């Protein structure tokens, strides 16, 4: 019998190695796998490359990883928020590297990793500073930039419900990067609020089929923390 459910976030993250690339879901306060991030901090892996839409707010989540000195590089679209002071200080001190990627390209590069696409041409960013040094090509009279996959060693995603085969469904806009990141990593770990019996998820409505999920761990439900509206983008 296949059972991907692990008893704790600690058990789920036990084998994350130094130097790993970790894809972390979430956009604003929605879909952030907070318990998995906390467990990653406790677990101790160092020299991580973190792929996330942002670079951490205040002192929790990705910011706490930064504060703990575990992050070598951040790949994200929007590192500057009202309370991204931890990232800003480390970046200015040259202690963390930044790869800035347009948000859609960030998501599409992970999708390419999951879908076995070697590289793709996108019009996004053509002629801008973010395309500097990248190969370009005119296609149908329009400038395009060549972009390559972003693969994760580990993906940490937050879903609403999961089953022992790893099937997942999400809740509202908390879905965001989860399904794509799940497809793009060697080891995908999902935290869920509910573990349900096989068959309880409608096969027409499963968003992430279990093939993309390595481990599922249940965390206690809590009210999602609001991020200040000024922490925009």
């Amino acid at each position: 019998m296949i059972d991907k459910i692990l008893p704790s976030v600690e058990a789920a993250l036990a084998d994350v190695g130094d130097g790993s690339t970790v894809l972390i879901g979430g956009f604003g306060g929605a879909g952030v796998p907070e318990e998995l991030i906390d467990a990653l901090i406790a677990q101790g892996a160092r020299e991580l490359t973190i792929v996330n839409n942002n670079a951490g707010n205040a002192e929790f989540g990705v910011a706490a990883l930064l504060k703990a000195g575990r992050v070598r590089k951040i790949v994200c679209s929007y590192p500057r928020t009202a309370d991204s002071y931890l990232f800003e200080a480390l970046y200015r001190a040259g202690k963390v590297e930044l790869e800035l990627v347009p948000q859609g390209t960030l998501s599409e590069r992970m999708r390419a990793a999951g879908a076995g696409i070697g590289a793709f041409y996108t019009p996004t960013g053509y002629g801008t500073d973010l395309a500097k040094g990248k190969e370009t090509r005119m296609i149908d009279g329009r400038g395009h930039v060549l972009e390559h996959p972003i693969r994760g060693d580990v993906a940490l995603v937050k879903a609403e419900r999961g089953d022992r085969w790893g099937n997942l469904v999400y809740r509202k806009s908390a879905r965001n990067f989860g399904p794509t990141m799940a497809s793009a990593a060697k080891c995908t770990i999902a935290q869920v609020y509910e573990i349900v019996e096989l068959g309880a998820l409608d096969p027409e409505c499963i968003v992430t089929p279990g093939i993309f999920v390595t481990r599922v761990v249940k965390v206690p439900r809590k009210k999602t923390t609001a991020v200040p509206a000024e922490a925009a983008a």
Partner: protein
Amino acid sequence: MSYAKLTREQIAARIARDIPEGAYVNLGIGMPTLVGNHLPKDREIFLHSENGILGMGPAPAAGLEDMDLINAGKEPVTLLTGGAYFHHTDSFAMMRGRHLDIAVLGAFQVSVSGDLANWSTGGDAIPAVGGAMDLAVGAKNVWVMMEHLTKTGESKIVERCTYPLTGIGVVKRIYTDLAVIDITPRGLVASQLLPGLTFEELHRLTGIPVLPSGARAAA
């Protein structure tokens, strides 16, 4: 002659009036999100949010916020009856794939040829782009909403952007606190000037020739 500049809400109301029924629209973050407050109640307009929402509704009543249902600016919103959720990659496919009719974006500068600079003022600030570049190249019509002049009185409509570009030749129309300006092959074409504001004055403030709407190009 004197004139009172439009407030942000007034600019937003102008933009809202110009959005036709059935349009698929993204209001970016910041100032353009005000447009949502002014959409005519008798038109069905589909708001898209980059984080996976189509058919986004207004802010919820106080106390009914759901932080799993937020807009691109991370503020709580609602879903209209008939709306749908999807993941980020599908959401940006909608944007990049030219399925949105209109994106309303803020800007630091717009050039006469429609170049857009709205993500970085260069210099020492931490760079951050979000979904701006995807919207700039993706929407069928990119409209800019901004004040006409900087705080120090310089035109934000320029011959050539000096700030880092978001996209090249992408902007079709600019809504400012002074007028509505279309970017056309024959140059800037202005309409809806503030009462009391002359074309000459608008030209002077902009520093670039501005044609009246309906005027013909010189032979």
